[in-house]
């Protein structure tokens, strides 16, 4: 087997891996960032492509089981009401994400302490604020300062246009006296493109890291992390595009493969010392999976609202029901997001499903009775950790390298169900005030397992957790996890901003302590 060597190896070139790759690239070290997916031309995944609506169902389908690319691994969702969505390529899921970019609330870091539910983090909002700010600057986050739902956030770029539907819903929020605010988005306002320009981590971090000398290895799947007798990670065995196996020796390894990809690699790396998965003496690996159950409420209006235009994700949001209130029958809360309605092709397929459209004379009448006339709202519920929600290796379904896939075992908690019911009721109220002539609602929505959290949680000691506050594995000192697997709680917002801020914080720690961390290997 051919051997290679690097100082730092980052497994995964998505949101977290890219941020750390850039941050560590300032060190005078050899850094390799490896990814199982390909490097895709920027022109292919732009949100402003004419064929964006089509590619969403083909090359850029969110469901790995439908894509079935060589770079994907099978995910068995049979035992879960929510199925996993991801994208395996250099840039990861940021190639297809909506770019909605809120931060966690200060309370999200201490839910156990203040609400007696979930788990506390080992650091707080103030500790992370510096990294949120740095990340906002790198990404170019747009939004509006002064949001009462957050501590002051400065240096935001001009907020995106909230559109006609945003304006209508904002008026309804005002009538009800509920909180709302223009969305934070990793999207730059553009006069040319209505959706704005949404960079991915390839543009915001990886290209800069490459300029500083970081080597990106696409189409290279890590099969196993190897460790020495004294429990130090020595490197990885990976398979390249030609399915040749290589050994890549590394002094320090950072895992950045998402809340299911990371535990999958660790589970596949089990050995005599770690029979239940690498770095899993605590038995916590793969457990406490959190997914953000999502409710969907759609109001149908008589007039054209152009709701099909605007940012791909959320244009305005509300945190009226985000924090715990005694009078409610659940703890913690949720975000209400105003989404973009589908374009003409997606509208057609949606109507076809309900037999409300046909080709022929009535084609445009049927289509334009729906297209641009609906306002969709999403309810993003905070999920709480539960050891019975877990992932495991699926030996029946294997990837193109013969490695076992993943099986998801997940149930909605009573708390989440109550939260969803509450959210749906209040979104209906909001849409009624806005003048909706009919409303559809359901939840949890199946294909919404985007935010994969908690499967290698951080904690105070090796008995209750996989990593410490710096993402360092308790059991293997030169192995770090820098993605959302380590989050002890999920919050009720999209996680990309926090994933990257945490990754920057951990890589800062590694930068400051690199020599000491390496010395332990000897």
């Amino acid at each position, binding site marked *: 087997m051919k051997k290679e060597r690097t100082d730092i190896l980052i497994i995964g070139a998505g949101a977290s891996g890219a941020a750390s790759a850039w941050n560590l690239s300032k060190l005078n070290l050899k850094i390799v960032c490896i990814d199982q997916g390909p490097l895709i031309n920027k022109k292919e995944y732009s949100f402003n492509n004419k064929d964006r609506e*089509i590619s969403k169902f083909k090359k850029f389908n969110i469901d790995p089981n439908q894509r079935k690319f060589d770079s994907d691994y099978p995910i068995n969702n049979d035992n879960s009401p929510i199925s996993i969505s991801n994208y395996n390529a250099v840039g990861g899921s940021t190639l297809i994400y909506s770019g909605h970019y809120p931060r966690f609330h200060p*309370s999200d870091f201490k839910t156990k302490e203040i609400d007696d539910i979930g788990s506390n983090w080992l650091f707080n909002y103030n500790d992370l604020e510096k990294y949120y700010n740095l990340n906002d600057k790198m990404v170019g986050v747009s939004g509006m300062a002064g949001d009462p*739902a957050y501590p002051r956030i400065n240096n935001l770029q001009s907020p995106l246009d909230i559109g006609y539907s945003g304006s209508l819903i*904002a*008026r309804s*929020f005002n009538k009800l006296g509920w909180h709302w605010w223009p969305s934070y988005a990793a999207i730059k306002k553009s006069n040319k493109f209505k959706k704005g320009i949404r960079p991915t981590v390839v543009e915001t971090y990886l290209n800069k890291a490459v300029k500083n000398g970081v080597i990106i290895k696409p189409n290279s799947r890590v099969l196993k992390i190897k460790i020495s007798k004294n429990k130090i990670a020595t490197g990885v065995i990976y398979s390249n595009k030609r399915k040749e196996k290589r050994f890549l020796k590394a002094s320090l390894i950072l895992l950045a493969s998402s809340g299911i990809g990371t535990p999958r690699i660790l589970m596949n790396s089990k050995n005599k010392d770690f029979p239940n998965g690498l770095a899993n003496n605590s038995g916590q690996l793969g457990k406490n999976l959190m997914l953000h159950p999502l409710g969907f409420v759609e109001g149908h209006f008589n007039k054209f609202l152009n709701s099909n235009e605007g940012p791909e994700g959320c244009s305005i949001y509300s945190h009226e029901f985000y924090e715990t209130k005694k009078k409610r029958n659940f703890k913690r809360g949720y975000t209400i997001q105003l989404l973009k309605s589908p*374009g*003409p*092709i997606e509208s057609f397929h949606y109507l076809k499903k309900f037999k409300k459209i046909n080709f022929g004379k009535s084609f445009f009448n049927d289509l334009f009775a729906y297209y641009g006339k609906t306002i969709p709202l999403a309810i993003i519920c905070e999920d709480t950790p539960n050891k019975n929600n877990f992932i495991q290796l699926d030996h029946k379904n294997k990837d193109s390298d013969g490695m076992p896939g993943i099986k998801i075992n997940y149930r909605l908690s009573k708390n989440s169900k109550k939260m969803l019911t509450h959210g749906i009721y209040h979104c209906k109220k909001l849409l009624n005030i806005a003048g909706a002539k009919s409303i559809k609602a359901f939840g949890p929505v199946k294909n919404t397992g985007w935010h994969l959290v908690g499967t290698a949680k951080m904690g105070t000691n090796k008995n209750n957790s996989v990593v410490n506050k710096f993402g360092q594995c308790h059991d293997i000192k030169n192995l770090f996890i820098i993605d959302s697997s380590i989050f002890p709680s999920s919050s009720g917002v999209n996680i990309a901003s926090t994933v990257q801020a945490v990754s920057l914080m951990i890589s800062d720690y590694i930068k400051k302590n690199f020599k000491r961390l390496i010395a332990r290997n000897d």
Partner: protein
Amino acid sequence: MTDSKKRYIFKNNLKNILNNMIPGDEFMPCFSHAVKIETIIKKYLKNKLLLNLKKKKIKIFKKKDIEIYQKLLGNDILDTYFTSNSVINSLNLRKKYYLKDIKKENVFKLLKKAKHKKQFFRE
């Protein structure tokens, strides 16, 4: 019948079907005004389900046949139609027409009217 004659008949029949499926309205063009039929022909010329269309010019299609054609061509023609420049322009014109009487308030004005507390989050 020569190949070019067959192709000519096929093109006319296909055009007829596609314009029947997407006939256009006051803003939107019919299919053949938005997309060159030639781009569709290439893909379907050898399709066995469409063999009839090469034989003779068909003026009125049977309902059963139309259903088959719609099933076969539906996704492709939707994708090509709605990504054509003339349809994108028509959608924009349509949008401008329907939005001319709809009020869009400035976000700053809307926020001024909001009854927000000074601090909403918990420390």
